[in-house]
């Protein structure tokens, strides 16, 4: 400690990339890709599951949604990644040869979908029941009153918990190191080992994560501001807890 050596980032790791700096930037790109693609998977699945858990008169769909959430919430992410990486390709022949990048995206997406489903559900249930009845009263079908009445408000309510979930997905993407996706954490471990300049490498990688988190935070605040409905006060307590 004490004497920094930031020139370590200009050294040649002797592989695909001409310098550690370029390797790190590429790793940052992988982190962002894994996180964003997983976020899309999680938002689509989580919204579907969250919505079917609030449907009236469909006890089996509600049960399916609840089972989904319990299943993906109660197994550690690392174990889920191992299941996708080692177990599923062995049991489901179609999944053989799928690159580990895709498997990690699916694992992280399914894991997060359970948490987003929980938030979507609580967002929908935070709305007064009268909104649903009003939709029915003007003759909307169930898909219609979800589309035009409930969901537009529910999504605005859950923007704050969705923000922290988006930041979580970036942090959780670090678990991809376990199946050799060359994202930031994997880079940190390998570069530390190769250069023995752990502190410089870890500091740089940590800075990348902090910058990513700040960027998401600002972006979501911008979205929240843009989509705000004048006169509608979003209840701050709505949405699930989580990590």
């Amino acid at each position, binding site marked *: 400690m004490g004497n920094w050596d930031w020139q370590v980032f200009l050294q040649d790791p002797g592989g695909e990339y001409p310098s550690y700096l370029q390797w790190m930037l590429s790793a940052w790109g992988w982190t962002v890709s894994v996180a964003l693609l997983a976020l899309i998977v999680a938002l689509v699945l989580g919204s579907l599951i969250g919505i079917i858990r609030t449907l009236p008169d469909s006890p089996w769909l509600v049960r399916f949604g609840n089972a989904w959430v319990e299943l993906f919430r109660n197994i550690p992410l690392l174990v889920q990644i191992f299941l996708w990486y080692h177990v599923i390709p062995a*049991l489901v022949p179609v999944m053989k040869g799928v690159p580990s990048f895709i498997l990690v995206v699916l694992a992280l997406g399914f894991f997060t979908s359970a948490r987003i489903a929980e938030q979507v559900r609580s967002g929908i249930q935070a709305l007064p029941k009268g909104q649903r009845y009003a939709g029915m009263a003007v003759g909307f079908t169930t898909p219609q009153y979800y589309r035009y009445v409930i969901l537009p408000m529910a999504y605005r309510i859950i923007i704050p918990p969705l923000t922290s979930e988006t930041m979580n997905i970036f*942090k959780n993407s*670090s678990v991809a190191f376990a199946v050799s996706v060359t994202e930031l*954490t994997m880079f*940190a471990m390998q570069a530390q080992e190769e250069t023995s300049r752990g502190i410089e490498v870890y500091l740089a990688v*940590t800075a990348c994560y902090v910058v990513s988190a700040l960027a998401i935070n600002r972006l979501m605040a911008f979205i929240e501001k843009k989509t705000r409905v004048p006169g509608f006060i979003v209840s701050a307590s709505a949405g699930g807890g989580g990590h």
Partner: protein
Amino acid sequence: MMNLDLSFYNWDVISNFVIKGFYFSIMLTVVATIGGVIFGTILALMRLSGKKWLDAPAALYVNGMRSIPLVMVILWFFLLVPASFYSLFGSLGSNYRSEISAVITFVAFEAAYFSEIMRAGIQSIPRGQVNAGQAVGMTYGQNMRLVVLPQAFRNMLPVLLTQTIILFQDTSLVYAIGAYDMLKGFETAGKNFGRPIEAYLLAAVVYFAMCYALSWLVKRLHKKIAIIR
């Protein structure tokens, strides 16, 4: 499904490989919860003290910890805790370096999360309670210890326990520094018998059963507390 070998699931595998890791996972969870709650409460009190020189460093610590992935924190501590620290533990220190480092990491990391929970808990206590304590002549310490914190803990108990379940799941991440936890136990067993698929499946089932049972208990506890209030 046809190539699963069910004979892998027997007591020998569990007792030779998994139990040791299971104990470590549980120990890590318990120590990190207790340590995290203690340091988290201190951090929360610092943030609520109204004094800038206490609030600012605590806020920096909590927000910093919360914006980095746990795996990176684990790697940081493994890198930074000096060798002289491990030598305090004698032979344990040289044999269980990863494990000791993991315990320190989790206490430090979870303190940040528990402090946010405790802060919300303390803020949920009506101002009148604090005033009443002051009115009967209690000092700040007495007021906190006898009036505010017992109620805050009680209010926050379900959230604290939910966080503990998340913490238990997160202990699997000590994989990054090769500490021998429950997941590692399953993995080692799977490798030794050439049956990794069965091992990972069993690991998932065991984690699921434990976390599901715990969260069911927390839900019941939540209802019980809710009725009294």
